[in-house]
């Protein structure tokens, strides 16, 4: 037997897949070949050592660490839709407010602080002066006010729903997640 065949048989021996006859041949070769004998001993020794390495106990808090780092509601569609609707509602309100403020800022030469004061004063004035008029108007044109409110709310609801659906879709499609992914 040559050393190359012996080397292959050594592997089969380590795997426990060696045939009985091959095993006899291998050991015969090992007795006569010093290099292969040395290699075999070294190899067996190292493999034995790796196999006998004790298992290490992991820290006890792994579960807590992992569970606090994952979003347990990630695959809960109901919770995700609820979350999305809340987030989207906030987004819609901010978009409307943002648009309104942006418009005011663009059309004014005052500083932001001045604008804020002016607008608060305007709002208070408007509420105090026009609220009774508004109430009277609502009283007189109830149908018109109700339908107007309904249209505005529907618009808000539709845009909120659209953003929520888009977010759930993004989450599904691209694993988009507000928390860590």
């Amino acid at each position, binding site marked *: 037997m040559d050393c190359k065949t012996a080397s292959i048989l050594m592997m089969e021996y380590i795997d426990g897949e060696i045939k009985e006859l091959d095993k006899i041949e291998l050991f015969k070769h090992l007795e006569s070949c010093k290099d292969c004998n040395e*290699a075999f001993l070294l190899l067996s020794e190292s493999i034995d050592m790796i196999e006998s390495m004790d298992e290490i106990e992991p820290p006890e808090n*792994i579960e807590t660490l*992992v569970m606090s*780092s*994952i979003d347990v509601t990630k695959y809960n569609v109901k919770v995700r839709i609820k979350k999305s609707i809340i987030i989207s509602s906030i987004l819609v309100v901010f978009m409307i407010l943002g648009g309104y403020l942006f418009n005011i800022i663009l059309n004014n030469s005052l500083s932001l602080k001045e604008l804020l004061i002016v607008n608060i004063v305007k709002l208070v004035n408007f509420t105090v002066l026009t609220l009774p008029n508004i109430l009277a108007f609502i009283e007189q044109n109830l149908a018109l006010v109700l339908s107007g409110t309904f249209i505005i709310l529907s618009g808000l609801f539709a845009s909120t729903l659209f953003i929520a659906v888009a977010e759930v879709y993004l989450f599904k499609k691209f694993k988009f997640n507000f928390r860590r992914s």
Partner: protein
Amino acid sequence: MNEQDIEIVNKCLSGDGDSFEKLVTKYKKKIYNIAYRYTGNSEDALDVTQEVFIKAYNSLKQYDPKYKFSSWILKITTNYCLDLKKKKKLTTVELNIDLDNNETSTSAEDIYIHKENKELIANSINSLPDEYKILIILFHNQNHSYQEISEMLQLPLTKVKNRLYRARNMLKDALKNTRREESKWTAKQLQY
């Protein structure tokens, strides 16, 4: 009765994320041990274990039930370990071998020689390239079959076998060289 892995995965996917804890409990030891053998220290091993579970949870939808869950999560572990080294996040990657293990040898000299050998073997294993080192850990330390490793590393069975053969041969050569160097060194010391 123990719940099957696939049942737990399905529970998680249908919204019960808390069930994932059962999988963490079941596989933490195995993953931690591979990570520990690979990274060489408990701090990095803990990080790897945590990251592997987080990755597994976040990509649970990609799990294909026709394979074992254990193979899938160990695939994530091995990939993560190999990537970690590529990113050079780990400065030293050493196979940690407990040198203070209780020995049955009687004399102090025997214990010393045994410790020396252990160190020698540990150094030789550490000198292996990562792809080979991970094979040695999975096959010889974690007792995975060729088939399981093939699934984990997504390599053909023959390639796994060949690589492991090569890994063992490299180990053998490394040991041989280290021993030769050591004996030269001892001979030189004796001359003085």
